[in-house]
């Protein structure tokens, strides 16, 4: 049987790995005690300085003027429009990427064909490409001076500097997440169960629904969570295509930028804290999913 690729060293696989909390560690090697203390101290200090402190800063700054000021940040119409747009974008991008992710991982994990690693590299692309460039390529395609620009103008369709552009850019940046989460899982599970179902007379859809889906449900759930977190938080790509039209083409991250540049720090951090909470929820959900997946 052909050796399945070791998934964990590609970019996307590392991204999807960014979930697993350490499994049961092997028997501790006999590092001398002083070394253990030193390494532990270095690691903890490094992590605290780079991670803990900035995270705490978000909430500290948001609450600097008190709880009242915190909540009034959400009262502004612009901010509310930004929140609505962000949710709308996620609501479109995530399901589409979910379908893509399932289709791609089915094709890649269950079949052998030439060009598979090229395909996987293509799927990894958004991870290696700067978000700014991700946005830029859409401007070059759909913008007024873009390739399809004149055609779109003739038909009175605006994509860039409008909501559709934002949605497209978000899709581009987040489409690998579900796929990259599912592929290693499905590869590891192999094709035996599906083969068995086929021999027992199940159709393709039945096999998928009753055999494959239950096996991948936790990975799927987690991929969706990650995709969603990234969709709501994407900044660079959306910044390029949105045009920053207040109240219309601003997402939450863009709104944060605007507030910050206006020196409205408390409001900026208050809105940012929403995303920070989302990030923390994502991390916690990851841990739960990992535990469930191991129990299963």
């Amino acid at each position, binding site marked *: 049987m052909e050796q399945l690729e070791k998934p964990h*060293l590609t970019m996307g696989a590392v991204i999807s790995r960014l979930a697993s909390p*350490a499994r049961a560690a092997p028997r501790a090697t006999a590092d001398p005690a002083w070394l253990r203390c030193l390494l532990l101290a270095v690691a903890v200090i490094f*992590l605290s300085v780079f991670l803990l402190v900035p995270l705490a800063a978000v909430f500290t700054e948001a609450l600097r003027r008190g709880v009242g000021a915190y909540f009034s940040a959400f009262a502004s119409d612009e901010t509310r429009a930004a929140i609505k747009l962000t949710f709308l974008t996620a609501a479109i991008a995530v399901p589409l990427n979910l379908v*893509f992710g399932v*289709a791609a991982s089915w094709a890649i994990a269950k079949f052998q*064909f030439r060009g598979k690693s090229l395909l996987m590299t293509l799927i990894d692309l958004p991870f290696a490409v700067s978000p700014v460039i991700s946005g*830029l390529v859409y401007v*070059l395609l759909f913008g007024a001076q873009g390739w399809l620009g004149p055609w779109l103008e003739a038909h009175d369709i605006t994509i860039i500097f409008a909501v559709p552009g934002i949605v*497209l850019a978000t899709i581009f940046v987040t489409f690998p997440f579900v796929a990259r989460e599912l592929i290693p899982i499905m590869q590891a599970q192999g094709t035996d169960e599906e083969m068995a179902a086929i021999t027992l007379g199940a159709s393709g859809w039945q096999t998928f629904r009753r055999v494959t889906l239950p096996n991948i449900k936790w990975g799927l759930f987690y991929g969706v969570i990650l995709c969603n977190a990234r969709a709501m938080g994407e900044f660079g790509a959306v910044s*390029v295509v949105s045009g920053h039209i207040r109240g219309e083409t601003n997402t939450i991250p863009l709104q944060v930028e605007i507030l910050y540049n206006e020196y409205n720090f408390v409001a900026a951090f208050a809105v940012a804290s929403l995303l920070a909470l989302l990030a923390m929820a994502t991390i916690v959900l990851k841990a739960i999913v990992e535990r469930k997946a191991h129990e299963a």
Partner: protein
Amino acid sequence: MTIALKSPRRVLPGFGLSLGFTLLYLGLIVLLPLSATVIKTLGLTWGQFWQEATSPRVLASYRLSFGASLLAAGLNTGFGFIVAWVLVRYSFPGKRIFDGLVDLPFALPTAVAGIALTAVYAPHGWIGRWLEPLGIQAAFSRLGVLIALTFIGLPFVVRTLQPVLEDLEPEMEEAAACLGANRLQTLRRVILPELLPTLLTGFALAFARALGEYGSVVFISGNLPMRTEITPLLIITKLEQYDYRGATALAVVMLAASFCVLLVINLLQKWSNWRNRI
């Protein structure tokens, strides 16, 4: 829906459908826009391209982007190794929290990270206030860029190393110990060579991520042209000035760099698989 074997080779159904949809999606979302970039670039002559891609301001931004990304990736590789080692091999209170925390730069939107880091390292910030008396300016300087890029790449090395460290055969270290090697020798001669492809991959991933990073850097860097301006920001600036030619040229350079890094990562994976074959 009955299943008839469509071709003698494929027993499981749905290949055509799944692959077809995948390719369609990829084509529309990825390939089409990318080719637009290429075509736009073709609108430039070589001379124009070269001029746009190597003007002094642009070169300064390359130096910063590439230089800081390399340095940040290096920092992350060194410290990331320690963090991964500690998380895999030691137990301590709060370990699960720290382990989850490693994912923060990945889960946190870049803009939020940007303003948070700026707040922390600004002259009156929590850490900035300790650095100022020492004459070190963290925010609005290249150091700030370095800090932001280190933040963003942190999970990559740690998460790449963790599974490999977990799978490391303890017997090899025991064998080395039996043969008389002390811990340092074992680390240098036995463990690190085993981990080399993984370390390099983590480095490459962190580097690739840092290279293209925008959101977390633009707040803390101050964006002074020729000093603290990273290439992605320069691209946006050119776009806002409707300098499509310039923006496209830069984008092509960065895309080329991204492809190179992806290729390196792919090769590293092949190398690692070759080494790990039984």
